[in-house]
């Protein structure tokens, strides 16, 4: 690989790559991100390669496995260049048709296009799809254009030009000032201004400094860091090198979750490629700046996403947090000043250097600038990653981009900020999304998980879920977190089981306050948020559970029962066959009956009952009607009546 000794050589090399490429040559991009791989993308890639070979097109058509473009719900996603035709949910058996129709004949295969559920219109191009149309994609826009394992693709798309600019014509202080001016706030959760953090490290007298990428994305329901690191690893690396240069660090670490093997693979490869090109290592671009990067894997501990715990883990010990009397940007990894930012924050840095702080601050709200990637998941039609400008309303995200709630259900709440965040009810849907706005509503930005809940989601159970999650993940070092959360979990579990009593809510509030005040790290301090916000907006649900022993969302297992409506049952016996507990009795022309003693409330009967019968019902807070018996159980078929 060519070693690039100056920004000019980089530019020359880029032109060379571009001159070798024919922009009109057909190229089939298939998303090879984890979501699409789970839906069978690797088989689709293999099928394309085999078919291209078979039809003798190897010289005229390219294929590439790319990063995640975000629309995971409809994966595997295939985009065909140069026309940018986008096909969704492509299966290996669709491949011959795509090659013969679209690549050879330039015809569109209708059935693989996105159909707008609201208008019924078909979208041929990626940018025509409503899910993409309302986004502003700066960080993840290149994912579908880049083979994440090939540095040439990143270079062809302008990669490392920001590094060239920073090292070639800016002093470290100028870089720092630009990031400060852009008011880039940390995308990992708390929203601390990155430039201020960098400045603290730069000004610390210790000559040994470190920079770290926090890729320990442990928030359940969030996967944007995974997509960026897997799909466009060089963008994170470039940001990290620039950051290292700005603060005067010579070493950087990338701390990746063990659960993300593909991200580990791609970033390790990216480091090797960057080193081979001279973009990393000794004397980068002949500037005299030396910088090395190492990859460290986590081992499945959520608390290691906390900065001090993460550093302890890199040092090779159990990842327990420490009190932050001194910030880690002054005393961090091995006692040296350390700047730790998350994946998305680093990936924004090259954009700021390339396009300038003024461009960056032109997007967003007064206090939150730029765009933010959210993972829009849960009970929503278009699940996936969305990148939007700060300040967009939650309503626009959920309904315009997300396509609303599937199955004709009613929207109930959106949970943001992961286990440290809170639930936002329908009445606040017009809230503009920004760090401070979400905090004011009792939630937070967090790393950007956005979980949409419909009427079937029980909010008490949701609070219990998060508290339980954090109880399991607590490192156990401080009492309010270790013991306090355990008690909150016990009480919330009791309430969802219908065993709640008077005074439970008050006790929970007291425990929440103690955990907030007295916990050592942010895990404990923010752990009561899901409880407090659900109590604030959905107190009636808590009261229904405690006073009426009823779950209004018909979700808490101990408070519901499944019954079969004798009027609706047509004795198809599907439920009888599928019930894993053998709790349903039925026969030819006999109304099926659920034995409540044997029923494990798994919901299989509810799920398999054909919608045209709709005979299985969930009830809560009312007595189970006695089973029909004798003559009444016999179903009289329409034809036999006369």
């Amino acid at each position, binding site marked *: 690989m060519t070693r690039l000794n100056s920004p000019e050589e980089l530019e020359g090399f880029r032109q060379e790559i571009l001159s070798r490429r024919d922009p009109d040559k057909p190229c089939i991009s298939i998303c090879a991100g*984890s979501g699409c791989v789970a839906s069978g993308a690797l088989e689709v890639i293999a099928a394309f390669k085999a078919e291209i070979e078979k039809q003798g097109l190897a010289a005229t058509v390219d294929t590439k496995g790319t990063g995640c473009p975000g629309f995971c719900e409809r994966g595997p996603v295939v985009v065909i260049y140069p026309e940018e035709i986008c096909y969704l949910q492509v299966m290996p058996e669709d491949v011959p048709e795509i090659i013969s129709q679209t690549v050879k004949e330039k015809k569109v295969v209708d059935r693989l296009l996105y159909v707008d559920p609201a208008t019924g219109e078909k979208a041929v191009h990626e940018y025509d799809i409503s899910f993409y149309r309302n986004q502003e994609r700066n960080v993840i826009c290149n994912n579908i254009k880049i083979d994440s394992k090939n540095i040439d693709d990143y270079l062809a798309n302008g990669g490392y030009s920001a590094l060239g600019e920073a090292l070639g014509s800016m002093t470290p202080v100028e870089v720092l000032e630009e990031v400060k001016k852009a008011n880039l706030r940390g995308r990992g959760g708390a929203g601390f201004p990155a430039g201020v953090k960098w400045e603290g490290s730069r000004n610390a007298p210790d000559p040994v400094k470190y920079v770290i990428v926090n890729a320990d994305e442990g928030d359940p329901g969030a996967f944007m860091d995974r997509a960026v690191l897997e799909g466009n690893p060089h963008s994170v690396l470039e940001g990290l090198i620039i950051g290292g240069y700005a603060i005067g660090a010579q070493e950087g670490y990338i701390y990746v979750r063990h659960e993300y093997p593909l991200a580990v693979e791609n970033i390790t490869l990216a480091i090797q490629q960057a080193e081979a090109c001279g973009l990393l290592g000794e004397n980068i671009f002949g500037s005299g700046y030396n910088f090395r990067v190492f990859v460290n894997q986590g*081992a499945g501990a959520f608390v290691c996403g906390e900065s001090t715990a993460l550093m302890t883990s890199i040092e*090779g010990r159990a990842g*327990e947090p420490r009190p932050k009397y001194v910030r880690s940007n002054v005393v961090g990894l091995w006692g040296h000043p350390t700047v730790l930012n998350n994946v998305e924050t680093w990936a924004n840095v090259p954009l700021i250097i390339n396009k300038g702080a003024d461009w960056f601050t032109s997007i967003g709200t007064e206090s939150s600038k730029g765009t933010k990637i959210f993972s829009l998941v849960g009970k929503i039609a278009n699940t996936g990653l969305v990148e939007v400008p700060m300040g967009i309303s939650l309503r626009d995200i959920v309904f315009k981009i997300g396509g609303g709630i599937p199955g004709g259900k009613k929207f109930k709440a959106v949970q943001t900020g992961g286990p440290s965040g809170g639930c936002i009810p329908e009445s606040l849907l017009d809230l503009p999304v920004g760090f401070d706005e979400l905090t004011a509503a009792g939630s937070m930005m967090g790393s950007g998980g956005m979980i949409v809940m419909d009427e079937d989601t029980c909010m008490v159970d949701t609070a219990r879920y998060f508290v339980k999650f954090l109880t399991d993940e607590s490192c156990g070092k401080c009492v309010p977190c270790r013991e306090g959360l355990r008690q909150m979990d016990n009480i919330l579990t009791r309430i969802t089981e219908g065993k709640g009593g008077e005074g439970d809510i008050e006790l929970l509030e007291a425990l929440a306050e103690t955990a907030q005040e007295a916990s050592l790290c942010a895990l404990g301090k923010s752990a009561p948020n899901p409880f407090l916000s659900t109590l604030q907006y959905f107190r009636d649900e808590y009261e229904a559970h405690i006073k009426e022993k009823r779950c209004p969302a018909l979700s808490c297992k101990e408070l519901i029962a499944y019954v079969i409506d004798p009027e609706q049952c047509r004795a198809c016996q599907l439920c009888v066959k599928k019930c894993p507990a053998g709790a349903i009795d039925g026969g030819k022309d006999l109304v099926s009956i659920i034995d409540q003693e044997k029923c494990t409330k*798994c919901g299989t009967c509810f799920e398999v009952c054909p919608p045209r019968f709709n005979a299985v019902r969930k009830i809560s807070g009312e007595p189970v009607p006695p089973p029909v018996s004798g003559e009444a159980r016999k179903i009289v078929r329409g034809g036999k009546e006369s």
Partner: protein
Amino acid sequence: MDNERIDQIIEKHHGASSALIQILLDIQEENHWLPKEALDRVSEKLQVPLTTVRHAATFYKVFSTVPKGRHQVHVCLGTACHVRGANRVLDTVEEMTGIKPGETDLDLKFSLETVNCLGCCALGPVMEIDGKVYGKATPSKTIDVLKKYE
């Protein structure tokens, strides 16, 4: 796992005590669990007290200090999977295998774990067996999938 192989792994990480977790990860990856003898060897070679090694081996979820089954079942309980009914999937797995999360059955066929998020939220609820992801899981589909494993 023999000492020679453990030494090779330690060598790969230059024998630095800060690489403790990376070394344990490599051993776990190959051996599926961390036997006492392996921890002893790591402690000795890295000059790290055994208590520190054991602390790390029991603190992080990926590590196991007891043998694991032939098939590792991971049920994702991330929020997205949770709101789409992951608990019902977990219940079904527990019922079919007779084990709870963290346990291995007596035939060493299945080990069951819950995970917080596999990053495949769009496909929730998700179950992963030996690295293969089964998306949009339901109790009835789960039964069919588990039956395929020997």
